[in-house]
């Protein structure tokens, strides 16, 4: 069974299907808060719902208010189960901390290793690849 070492930023564990994006996400005005998906037409996960997914993307970009967008997604019931970043940042970490969304980033692996993976299980120490 393949495992990848992770760093836990906001504690928690989760299991589920991956929604993978190799592009960063701008949460303010780049995500539809009511619908729970990326709203930028040029983005590779445009319109794909976050809900129930383990959302994998490199990092956030753009407005500092993006942290509130993560909180609003959670309150709307449209947030992902967990987030895995290449390198988490202030926007994601603070937004996930108040929304109690488990957040991880990769210490030595690359998120591109998760591109072809459909299901994972993740906890404080490691990410286990469940289905290929």
């Amino acid at each position, binding site marked *: 069974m393949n495992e990848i070492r992770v760093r836990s930023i906001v504690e928690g564990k989760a299991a589920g299907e991956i929604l993978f994006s190799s592009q960063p996400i701008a949460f303010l005005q780049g995500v539809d808060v009511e619908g729970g998906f990326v709203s930028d037409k040029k983005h590779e996960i445009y319109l794909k719902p976050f809900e129930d997914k383990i959302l994998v993307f490199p990092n956030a970009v*753009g407005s500092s208010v993006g942290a509130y967008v993560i909180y609003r997604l959670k309150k709307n019931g449209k947030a992902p189960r967990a987030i895995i970043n290449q390198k988490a940042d202030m926007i994601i970490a603070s937004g996930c901390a108040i929304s109690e969304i488990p957040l991880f980033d990769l210490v030595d692996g690359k998120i591109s290793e998760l591109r072809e993976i459909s299901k994972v299980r993740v906890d404080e120490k490691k990410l286990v690849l469940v289905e290929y």
Partner: protein
Amino acid sequence: MYLTNAEEKALSGERGEAEQIAYRVLVATGKLGDAQKLIPIEWVHVSGVSFLTIGQYGLDFLEKISNSKGAKFKVFTTVNPCGMDIENWKALEIPTDYAEKQLQIIECYKKLGMANSFTCVPFETYKVPPAGTCVAWAESSAAVFGNSILGLRTNRESAISALACALTGKTVYSDLQIPLNRKPSKNIRVNLKKKMDFSGSLNFGVLGFFAGKEVPGVIGFQRVKQKLSLAEAKALSAAIGTLGSSGMFILDSKEKVETIDFTDREFEETMSDLSQSENGEAVVFGCPQMTLEELRDLSNAIQGKHFRKKCIVFCSSMMFERASHEGYVQSIESSGATFVRDACADFTPLISSLKVGSVVTDSVKGAHYMRKVHGVDISLKDTSTIIRENME
């Protein structure tokens, strides 16, 4: 991260819910840069003030924080613009239900002890401490400006992490708070054939937008002039923040790191990404909000002319008063322009209520957000061209 006994107690909830939430946020953000400790800061700048951006859930969260027993901003705390002119929203036809929500948000920040102005250019509004001072600024444009131009030390805080800093008077000791980290990770070399004299706030805005998207860490510029005007530095900082994650730039980078060329092609591509329209049905100035110097320059440039279309100028109420004292407000208003105080051009319902299909502006950040938020096409031009084409 090491926490003192007092900090541990606050984290466990002994000092109320607001501080407990704040320390939870600091513990999470501390892990990002493997911070070893929290450090005191002298100034916090908080974003997340317009009802258009934080919504009902954001308001609920702020009410929970501000109603929590003993919750107060522990250090000097300034806040970002809101979504309307607080004094004059009725005359500007802001919907009442929106205005009520906006006033509730403002009440939360007032209760916590905010400084009395809504501005995204706090560094031009209040006295700036000496270089090397540790602060915690959200509002990406201000954070980039503070690090790069003023020599302050700030991480690029988020709206929520800055709120946590204000409630505790502390931030995490990591990233740009640590002097060793304040060096370029990539260089952007300006290499244009068409524009040998690279100057003006629009050109620097376009450069910043490109650089912000290319470089996630500290940006090292090469072959740009060494002394930027206030307007150029402000436009560059704001554009870097718009779609990037960098918190700082250095002019004249000598760092031997990967170097990306900014040629005529990159300039044109970035420009055509941002600007779709030949001209706009309304003119918008002040993203980020106008400084006193910019109001002076605008007032001089439009002397004796009149706008042929609606023109809106955004600045803080404090800057409005200062400019009024100097006579700039009167001369700008007599040209037919309307002032909107304390609001953000990008996140006010005002622009949508103008019912125009296009807006002309000199701001790269404004171009990006006004298009996204209000669905208008943008004509991006430099200030003097806007004046020439839209005034008589």
